[in-house]
């Protein structure tokens, strides 16, 4: 009986999340287009500086950007086309956005997923052992390690991964894990300090049992929220890593597009990133509330 009720609730929750998702993505696409359009440098092309070009050619170069000047027109036109599966053509690379994204998405996905898994493995291992051992020196060492990686610029980490020939996913993991670790450690420490868990420990329950029966339902929803957010962090980290390691992924593409003020490409990448962010965070929410329900 209870099962059916929660199923219906969850279905409703998913539907609500779906609606929010569509609205947010549409708004995100529009806002990103506005941001790009309003930022300086939208109407110019580096090639204008080529002294070989005569006046007419420079004017033609400037004209080519004019059609995207009216942001509302551009936005609705793009939406219309997107419904038919055409995401437009990149200004700077001259290729269809669909092809560009399709070619580069698998690499970035692999990079981000492996990076995230690695970072969470390290973060949870460190945080759990810190919570179990409750030894200040150990905690300090873990803090120094994660602090060090937090302080090294992402570009330097990416460069080091080239220097030592390690895969880019590891660089992403190293950029992401200190944040995960800090949240996880603080949340777990808090959970373990609660009276009923101290009591359970005193009763001699096994650490694993305490973890799964008492700690996970408590800290789980929050840890999931951290996990959801870490997806955005990993995507952000993919930009310098891909750009420096010469990996042809979406991160590298996003960077090129930003430098070239490539509106169609940027807007589609924003949509993609918004989608992934929303999916990650919403699923963290849904699963989190399921955990909470279980606890109740």
């Amino acid at each position: 009986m209870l099962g059916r009720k929660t199923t219906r609730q969850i279905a409703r929750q998913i539907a609500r999340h779906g609606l929010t998702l569509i609205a947010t993505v549409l708004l995100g696409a529009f806002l990103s287009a506005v941001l790009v359009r309003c930022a300086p440098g939208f109407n110019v092309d580096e090639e204008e500086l080529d002294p070989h070009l005569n006046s007419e050619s420079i004017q033609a170069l400037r004209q080519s950007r004019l059609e995207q000047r009216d942001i509302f027109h551009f936005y609705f036109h793009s939406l219309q086309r997107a419904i038919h599966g055409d995401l437009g053509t990149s200004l700077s690379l001259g290729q269809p956005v669909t092809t560009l994204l399709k070619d580069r998405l698998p690499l970035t996905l692999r990079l981000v997923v492996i990076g995230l898994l690695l970072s969470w493995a390290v973060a949870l291992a460190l945080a759990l052992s810190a919570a179990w051992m409750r030894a200040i020196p150990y905690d300090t060492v873990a803090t120094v390690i994660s602090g060090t990686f937090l302080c090294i610029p992402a570009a330097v980490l990416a460069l080091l991964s080239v220097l030592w020939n390690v895969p880019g996913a590891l660089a992403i993991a190293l950029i992401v894990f200190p944040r995960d670790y800090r949240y996880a450690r603080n949340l777990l420490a808090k959970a373990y300090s609660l009276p009923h868990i101290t009591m359970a420990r005193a009763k001699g329950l096994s650490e694993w049992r305490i973890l799964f029966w008492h700690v996970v339902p408590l800290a789980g929803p929050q840890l999931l929220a951290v996990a959801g957010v870490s997806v955005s962090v990993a995507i952000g980290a993919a930009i310098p890593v891909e750009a420096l390691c010469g990996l042809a992924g979406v991160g590298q593409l996003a960077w090129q597009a930003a430098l070239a003020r490539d509106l169609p490409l940027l807007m589609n990448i924003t949509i993609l990133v918004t989608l992934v962010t929303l999916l990650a965070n919403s699923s963290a929410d849904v699963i989190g509330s399921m955990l909470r329900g279980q606890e109740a």
Partner: protein
Amino acid sequence: MTIWRRMACAILLLVVGLSAAANWLAPAGYAKQYREEADSGPSRAHWLGTDEIGRDRFARVLYGTRISLLLAPAAALLSTLMAALIGGLAGYLGGAWSRAAMAVTDLFLSLPWLFLLITVRALMPLNVSPVVSVLVTFMILGLLGWTSAARVLCASAGSLRDSDFVTQARASGIRGARLFWIHVLPNLKPVLYAQFWISIPAFILSEANLGILGLGVAEPLPSWGSLLKELEGLISVGEEPWKFVPLVLLVVVVTSFQLVLSKHEELAA
């Protein structure tokens, strides 16, 4: 425990003291270019060597500390407070509030803010003083940096809302802002501390990266971020170890911050 904390406090005080005494310790200042000794290693005259155009690295580290150590924690505090307010309230209120706040947060997480920053730079006059530029930069960082913590806080506050002791408190007549302030917010500390601690180095590094947009500290003013950027041209580790001093200093300071903070955390236990 107290020893660790005391040590951390002492280190922080020492760093602050050193940077305050920069005028005496490095009387030539951070901008003087010793052009005959550019990019040299440590020497009597230049303890940490000189940078690419011959400026004393030791002086730059000291003066950079002033800016970074003052402004990064301030910006981190701002972003933590914003996260607490937005995320905490959204989670505490729940329902449509929470959904709307989280949708905005997600949007914040995915928009290309780079272009906003470029626009901000365009709106500022070109001859802006370096101090104003760096203040604006850290303020923007603080204003944009709250998003990930807000999401976690929302989840935490959501759990708290349904928890026994908040229900009890509500039953005993404590309501609204008071309930949020007294019972909800203190329980969000683990997340708030994490956010604060992560933000400090993150903002210090971001400030340097915003240099490419003409934001952040302007030449010749130093900051830790701009000193750390020197590491980006490194093609071998260990060749010039003195270039790592700013990094080591930052790690030490960040760790000290954590140790000072963790005292409160243990107290909560």
